[in-house]
């Protein structure tokens, strides 16, 4: 299968799943779970562009989810903006902030970048938590249901379809980016910055570009999350554990596999739901599964399985 072919197949599978799921699992609960998968899948796809392709770690990406989430909350509560406007403004703000912090911190390498992004995420979360007058503090703030073209969007179903469509768009765009000249430049940077630079790739600019793009993905995911939850809290959007969850989604699904990130998101959203049967052993199982996953599929689900298939296949 040519790369282009396999991209289209993946996209088609995704569309089919999104289209069929409501028929197979009609309850609001399942729809909500699927919606969460799409929302986090979107953020994970964005983060994968940064981590899996450009090889730049971010341990603070939930910060951008927080910005997206709180911009729709604050936009409608404090500034009387419509939901759509505030989501767009949130994305713009995320892009601007990413461009600003990205310039200095993307010069850092490996674990140094990890700690810098970790710090960035912490700062955002602290800001949201401490500026309680504006943000409602740790208990969070309610997000009014947005009205779009005269429709009040409130049902789980509506948000299901909206997130599904946004995810498909996000995956499509990410796939295109990866296959484009920018995508190649990013992968080249991953392998050797000196060489990439020596053959004319503006390394700093490309890194910044993908950082901004991934921030926009996260921000949009944050806005969607805020809308479908109706409430945002610092921990459930910008917290460090959310950043870790995002990284885990990307890694489990497979660094450098767009489709894998959606799968990774599915795994991490579904696991807590499935693991409830273990009661007190939930954490133990979650940790164990994460470890086993990496041990058995060291490159993440999609790439590792693809490799195994290629090996056993003809």
């Amino acid at each position: 299968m040519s790369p282009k072919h396999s991209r289209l197949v993946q996209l088609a599978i995704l569309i089919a799943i999104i289209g069929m799921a409501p028929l197979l699992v009609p309850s609001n609960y399942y729809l909500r779970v699927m919606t969460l998968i799409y929302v986090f899948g979107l953020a994970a796809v964005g983060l994968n562009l940064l981590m899996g392709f450009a090889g730049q770690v971010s341990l603070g990406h939930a910060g951008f989810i927080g910005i997206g989430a709180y911009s729709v909350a604050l936009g409608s509560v404090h500034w009387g903006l419509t939901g759509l406007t505030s989501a767009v403004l949130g994305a713009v703000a995320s892009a601007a902030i990413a461009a600003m912090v990205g310039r200095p911190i993307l010069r850092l390498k490996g674990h140094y970048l990890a700690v810098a992004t970790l710090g960035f995420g912490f700062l955002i979360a602290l800001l949201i938590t401490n500026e309680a007058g504006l943000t409602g503090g740790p208990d969070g703030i309610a997000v009014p249901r947005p009205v779009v073209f005269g429709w009040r969007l409130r049902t789980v179903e509506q948000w299901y379809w909206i997130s599904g469509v946004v995810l498909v768009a996000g995956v499509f765009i990410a796939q295109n980016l990866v296959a484009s000249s920018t995508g190649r430049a990013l992968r080249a940077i991953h392998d050797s910055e000196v060489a990439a630079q020596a053959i004319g790739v503006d390394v700093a600019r490309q890194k910044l570009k993908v950082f901004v793009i991934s921030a926009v993905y996260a921000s949009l995911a944050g806005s969607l999350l805020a809308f479908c939850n109706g409430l945002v809290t610092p921990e459930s959007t910008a917290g460090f554990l959310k950043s870790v969850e995002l990284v885990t989604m990307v890694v489990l699904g497979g660094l450098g596999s767009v489709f894998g990130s959606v799968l990774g998101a599915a795994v991490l959203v579904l696991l807590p739901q499935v693991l409830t049967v273990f009661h007190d052993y939930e954490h133990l199982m979650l940790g164990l599964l994460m470890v086993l996953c990496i041990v058995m599929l060291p490159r993440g689900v999609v790439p590792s399985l693809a490799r195994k298939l290629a090996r056993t296949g003809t």
Partner: protein
Amino acid sequence: EQPIKIGAVLSVTGPASFLGEPQKRTIEMLTQQVNAGGGIGGRKIELVVYDDGGDANAARTFASRLIDEDKVVAMVGGSTTGTTMAMLPAFEEAEIPFMSMAGALQVVQPVRKWVFKTPQTDTMACEKIFEDIKARGFSSIAVVFGTDGFGRSMRDQCVSVAPKYNIRIVHEESFGPKDSDMTPQLTNVRGKKDVQAIVVPGIGQTPAILARNYRQLGMTLPLYVSHGVASREFIDLSAGGAEGARLPVPALLVGSSLASSDPQRAPVLAYTQAYEKAANQPVSAFGGFMHDGFQMVVEAIRRSGSSEPARIRDALEATKGFVGVNGIYSMTARDHMGLDLTGFRMVEIKNGNWSPIVAGN
């Protein structure tokens, strides 16, 4: 007979596990008790408990699950204000009664048709503390609050009721829920000459570190902590630092010293005994919240003779003079908490134990 399904979403793990953990043990123990006694009108209770880990997003998903999949008729829990607020809309929409264990006033004010709660509000705790401060003749205090939901909310309430008691808050400090050292904050307070007492709105074990540091710094200002630390662990962990600290606690914590005429004495002793046997650890106020909430729901089901959510709700709202371990509840259409200040007892920690304060001392 079909069992009656009751749901709970609790923060059994994560930063608020000190709330959710005793609540889970309590609700499991009480369910067993009810079922052992033949259930409600011959129907057993089937309990569905989920752990949200303190994450509002997870809580919201489990709420959907309880409603759509498990089809519970009533919901008890929501250990924190954050998780409760996230779940509220779902239960309002599904029209299922929701008995929350969250502290903040905003859960029941404005009154939401389907939502109730058991803990006293932070405002009440502030009032209780300020009453005592005023009685001792102090008027300017420092507030050192936790930056978690509980601490921040109680701090806000204290700030707003302080004028009522002619109390000035002359200095404020805060600490994070994961902080392991509060010496700098206390040092600052120590440096302020006009501070006559310190009030610590904070929950969990972090205030215990504060109490230790307080002691290590050799500070002697009167120290007030909140009902958010009302468990034995606080005293133990503070390693003597909490000696002399005062706080409002529910009757539950001063069980053995309750007068025999006190109506709460019987339920308090019963719960304490059962819990300490079942869980092998001392009772805490948080488990007590669950005790009262769950019992009220069971009562409501019993009284309404139905497992219709709407009937249960109506019965809950009609709760009158329910004697719990946390207070005596009388719900109305305008009050979905139904407690007054009498539920709180002011205690001082003496010789490593809660010791009731005789009024005016």
